[in-house]
């Protein structure tokens, strides 16, 4: 192999689909058939996963920290809720896209504030924007329904064909389809030169500029895209639960999202998905065991993760599967610890 084709081969190494990835999505799909009584919680996990993937795009790839990502989630949720409530756009998929675009506009507008600062400033600015929106939603209760939220949302069938059912089956598969499509898109983006330049900016903004990368423009672009994703997650929330209330903007929502990424890891897109599953399962588990003190146990888990290090945990967890793969396939582990996961 010539050096050049060798380079091309290795440059696409991470962009290629791995067996593990295909298995992951097949398992998710299988869950939809295996647990027909659990659609509501599973749909909740899918939404959280999409929301977390949105934060991963800016945090894991571009290194922008945010404590106010719920701002976009909330705008998406209210936009979708209002569109359905007033019958402005009745078709859910179209309404979903429009709600996402509304969040995207907000993301673009606020990105200029976010790119100016460093980490601490960014935390405060993003937090502040989410709080501002929450207060605004409360103030304009004639539009948002105030503390009662939007009530009486009735969803029309998807594409005018598939109606939402009371068990949440449609909602689940609808959310899964949206999540998968947006995942494919994000996957494409992060393996492009643009995606690579984001990682370079996260690693070293000074050098990134010194090789000709327009740093601010790239950060604005990814922040705007992430806002679109978060807005879609919020719109899915409003569409599948038929509610939108003030807590879509809540600080806890943004903070939980950070926890999801701490559990799942950042910078390889699956972190948000895996993290969302583990986070909700832990939440369920602990709240069944000790309904009052489940937050204590979540806290303990986080401390352990941070102290032991996610990379080591991954290695322990994947030890047996990798052993099997080596034995059977006679080659190195297919299920690998993501590289940027330190």
């Amino acid at each position, binding site marked *: 192999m010539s*050096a050049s084709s060798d380079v*091309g081969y290795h440059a*696409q190494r991470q962009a290629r689909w791995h067996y593990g990835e295909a298995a992951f999505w097949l398992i998710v799909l299988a869950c939809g058939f295996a647990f027909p009584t659990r659609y509501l919680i599973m749909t909740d996990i899918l939404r959280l996963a999409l929301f977390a993937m949105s934060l991963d795009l800016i945090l894991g790839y571009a290194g922008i920290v945010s404590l106010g990502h719920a701002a976009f989630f909330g705008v998406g949720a209210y936009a979708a809720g209002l569109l359905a409530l007033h019958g402005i756009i009745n078709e859910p998929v179209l309404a979903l896209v429009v709600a996402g675009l509304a969040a995207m506009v907000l993301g673009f507008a606020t990105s200029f504030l976010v790119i100016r600062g460093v980490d601490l400033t960014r935390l405060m600015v993003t937090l502040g924007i989410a709080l501002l929106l929450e207060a605004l939603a409360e103030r304009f209760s004639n539009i948002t329904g105030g503390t009662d939220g939007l009530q009486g949302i009735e969803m029309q069938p998807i594409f005018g064909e598939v109606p939402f059912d009371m068990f949440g089956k449609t909602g689940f598969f609808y959310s899964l389809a949206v999540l998968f499509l947006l995942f494919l898109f994000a996957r494409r983006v992060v393996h*492009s*030169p643009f995606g690579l330049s984001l990682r370079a900016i996260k*690693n070293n903004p000074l050098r990134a500029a010194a090789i000709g990368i327009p*740093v601010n423009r790239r950060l604005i672009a990814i922040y705007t895209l992430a806002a679109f994703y978060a807005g879609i997650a919020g719109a899915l929330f409003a569409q599948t639960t038929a509610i939108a209330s003030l807590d879509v903007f809540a600080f806890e929502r943004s903070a939980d999202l950070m926890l999801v990424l701490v559990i799942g890891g950042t910078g390889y897109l699956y972190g948000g998905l895996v993290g969302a599953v583990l986070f909700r399962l832990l939440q369920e588990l602990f709240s069944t065991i000790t309904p009052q003190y489940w937050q204590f146990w979540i806290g303990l888990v986080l401390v352990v993760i941070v102290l032991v290090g996610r990379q080591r945990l991954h290695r322990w967890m994947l030890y047996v599967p990798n052993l099997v793969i080596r034995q059977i396939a006679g080659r190195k582990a297919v299920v690998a610890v993501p590289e940027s996961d330190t």
Partner: protein
Amino acid sequence: MTIALETQNLEKQFGGLRVTRDLSLKIEQGARHALIGPNGAGKTTVINQLTGVLKPNSGRILLEGQDITDLAVHKRVLRGLSRTFQINQLYPDLTPLETIGLAVSERLGHGGDWWRRMGTRNDVNDEIADLLTRFHLLDAMNEQTVTLPYGKQRLLEIAVAIAGKPRVLLLDEPAAGVPESERHDILAVVGSLPRDVTVLLIEHDMDLVFSFADRISVLVSGALLTEGPPEQVARDPQVKAVYLGEEPVNV
């Protein structure tokens, strides 16, 4: 003779401290120009102004006759002005392949492409392969940069700057901190830069300066002390006094 890079009466102050004093430099097209001076003479501050990291308080900077004083860092790069850093400024998590691939992509205008995957453009791949080979990084192309030996990181540092196909290249102490055993590669690489690239070298290592440069400017306390061909600078009593000590220099 055309002038590749020029500063006119450059001034930079940090608070009350004048770090660059009325500095006027002319660097000729294709020159191997060295900027030397004792520690704290303000050499790196000059580089930072040339590249746009710092804004001068007054004075102009001209690249090939065009005023670039107010241009942003990345725009100067696209105009053909690249630099290396005295302390490696690399991307610890990225591999040499990705690092160089990115620099090449940006130069060819594919940097903002958010759809096509890395590694699918043959012109980019060819260039990456060429650079990795020239800089002895082909074997290490999939290693994370942070795990590379220092000498390799230093080579990568220079390779990244070259990937921008600069017409003017600023080398800020390219051999700094490199162990003796790995030094040879770096000197060879610096020595083999194409002649149409104008090089401004900032260096402490006098062997490197006098073997490489055809013109030397001496900076002391932010001001230009003297300038001339190496033999003349080496003989200059002022230079000996402030910089080279009292020992005679072998050229």
